[in-house]
């Protein structure tokens, strides 16, 4: 028992030392390095306007629902695209609820993009992402939405396709992960280059 009490004393002391070093000095050192070397990324890759208004983060999806914008993947974060409550639906493969929502999403996607009633729909277009904030859609999904966006903006579809290609990120170093299109950045570019006349 005496040994145990001595060890308790050592434990308290070392916990305090660790708290200072591992919970104080270490994150502060990383913070200093991060702010010095990669300030934009360390602060959330924010998308800001000339007057400083923050419009979102290049890494986080936000809601777009109208035809003139490319639409992100469905989101189960909070009430949708809530960047302070990330998460997926967590519905399993035999869930009736998931089945119903995918069925509705498939029908809506086909109607919105003028697809045939039996055309296969890209999986990412009708499922919710893991984080609810997935900034990307697949290249196939963007390709199918291009005609709709072009029509709503009254520009040739080739112009929109060019912009999609410019905002497509390939695999990292050509090897890692999968290619994808950043929806927010693409939509911002669309508004800049082909604004909708009011």
């Amino acid at each position, binding site marked *: 028992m005496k040994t*145990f009490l001595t060890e308790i004393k*050592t*434990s308290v002391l*070392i*916990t305090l*030392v660790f708290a200072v070093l*591992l*919970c104080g000095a270490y*994150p502060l*050192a*990383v*913070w200093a*390095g*991060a*702010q010095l070397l*990669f300030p934009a*990324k*360390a*602060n*959330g*890759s924010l998308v800001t306007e000339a007057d400083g208004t*923050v*419009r*979102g*983060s290049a*890494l986080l999806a*936000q*809601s*777009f629902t109208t035809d003139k*914008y490319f639409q992100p993947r469905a989101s189960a*974060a909070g009430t*949708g695209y*809530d*960047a*302070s409550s*990330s998460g*997926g*639906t*967590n*519905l*399993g*493969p*035999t*869930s*009736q609820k998931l089945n119903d929502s*995918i069925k509705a999403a*498939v029908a809506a996607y086909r109607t919105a993009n003028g697809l045939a009633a039996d055309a*296969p*729909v890209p*999986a990412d277009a009708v*499922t919710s*992402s*893991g*984080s609810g*904030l*997935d900034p990307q859609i697949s290249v196939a999904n963007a390709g199918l939405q291009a005609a709709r966006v072009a029509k709503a903006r009254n520009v040739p579809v080739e112009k929109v396709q060019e912009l999609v290609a410019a905002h497509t990120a390939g695999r990292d170093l050509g090897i*890692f*992960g*999968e290619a994808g299109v950043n929806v927010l950045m693409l939509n911002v570019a669309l*508004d800049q280059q082909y604004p909708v006349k009011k």
Partner: protein
Amino acid sequence: MNNPNAWFQFALYVGALLLVTKPLGLYLMQVLDPRGRTWLDAVVRPVERLTYRLCGINPEQEQGWIGYTFALLAFSLVGLLFTYVILRYQDHLPLNPQGLPGLTPHLAFNTAASFTTNTNWQSYTGEATMSYFSQMVALAIHNFTSAATGIAIAAALVRGIARQSAQTIGNFWTDTVRVTYYLLVPVCFVFALFLVSQGIIQNFKPYTVAKTYEPYTISVPKLDDKGNAVTTSVPKTDEKGQPVMDAAGKPVMVDQPVMVDQKVDTQTIVQGPVASQIAIKMLGTNGGGYVNANAAHPFENPTPLSNFFQILSIFAIPSALTYYLGRMVKNQRHGWAVWGAMFAMFVAGVLVAWEAEASGNPIHQKLGVAAADGNMEGKEVRFGIFNSALFATITTDASCGAVNAMHDSFTPLGGLVPLFNIETGEVIFGGVGAGLYGMLIFVVLAVFIAGLMVGRTPEYLGKKIQAYDVKLVILVLMVLAATILGFTALASVSPWGLAGLNNSGPHGFSEMLYAFSSAVGNNGSAFAGLTANEPHWDTTLGIAMLVGRFLMIVPIMALAGNLAGKKLIPASAGTFKVEGFTFIVLLIGTVVLIGALTFLPALAMGPVVEHYLMGAGTLF
């Protein structure tokens, strides 16, 4: 699986893992020797000495197994209380720009137990619950110390195997301090900066409110002045939409919340010191996310490249520890044999999970989802099918528990792999330290079984394995299995157990089985639809985590002490060789058979039956 690029990524991963194993193993030799020398000595040595002086530690004084265990338990107990108190009173502490309240007692207990035991099960939503101070101090301290403790225990056990007629197995304080200072902190510092370069945030600013491009309207429950939901009485309807009548023929009335429209034109973006925490979360196989979506969140895992290094960092130390084992017992082929058994089971898991997820869900494919895309529910586009299946396998082979895709939405077989990985005891590389000491339990058992088969007294590296040793091994295996299955059975027949479920049918059972497997295995990943922030779940899971950690560690320390005291007997022609192909097969057989025999009935009621129901198109 007909994706050549994915095979190439897999090959690169294996190559990178092999590449770090030996150098890191040799580095561990120096770190786990109080007189070891490293190239960081000039900077770190003074801090190390100062720590010993401030805490009154004599680094040269070795401890017996009881002393070592006492130190370890005292340290864990103090850490548990430290975290509990901070979490309860975070509203009175600094660095809380969002003004988040203190945690409830059951959630604070669950979380403190969770981080102390290297589990990092999270019953809460990180970004909406934890202040920066709680994240950085209360939680991150355990990310370092629980990892260091795990490595220390593995080192103590290896010393017990390597030494003969010895009374001591090392000094707990020296091991913990040296692992933290020479290994974890330096690697994490570099790793964290790399993660920032990929897009992970590191700041102390309050959450940013962004003005979004397309405002939209949502329907939310109307609240009165006190914040309670306003309800209205409406006739109850049955499944066909017909009003339900009572015996007197009057419509049955039920309360329904009143919904009002709310315009959403902003997005609140999470900020905070994330990168520093993610680095140690992965390297220390902790797995507790800063935000709820964990490594699926773009702020925790922004690119496929950050993903690659995160999964490499999970296996780096566990893999290197097998090399350390080989060096210490002066039988490198034994170290590689243990590595080989782990590696074979790892590859098998990846292939099954990958195939299942790539094949996708036939029910959804009938609705029109492109079959070639696989199961994308709960997955991120940048990772795709392969990297999600790979991550899920690695995080559960090890006791990491971070997730880059939602396991709850995996196909039944895709979800079976993580679940079974955890139920093997997480010995497929495993947690830092925990994987090796867990696997050595199976090594002793395998040697014992081989001894029975040939009718000789079993020997392990020149030490006789006797009744006492085998009893300790069986104790560990029994306690873990009984805790997982016992608690799952209890939850299955309790109203509170069923109330937490997000899915019905066999998938609901899988959610409960996964929760207790994850807690006892100190993994921390989840079928995350389960709502566990409730007194019963929080408490039972908290107990399960403590049992899974400490009732495993104490018998293992006793085993280490007992092995250290034994004499070496010279090898003879009849000695069973703990290297080469035969041994690898025997070891894999032992792990898989024990896991399968114990958990097959439970797995059959969850993912296995769900697999066939999915094929038949049954929905719940």
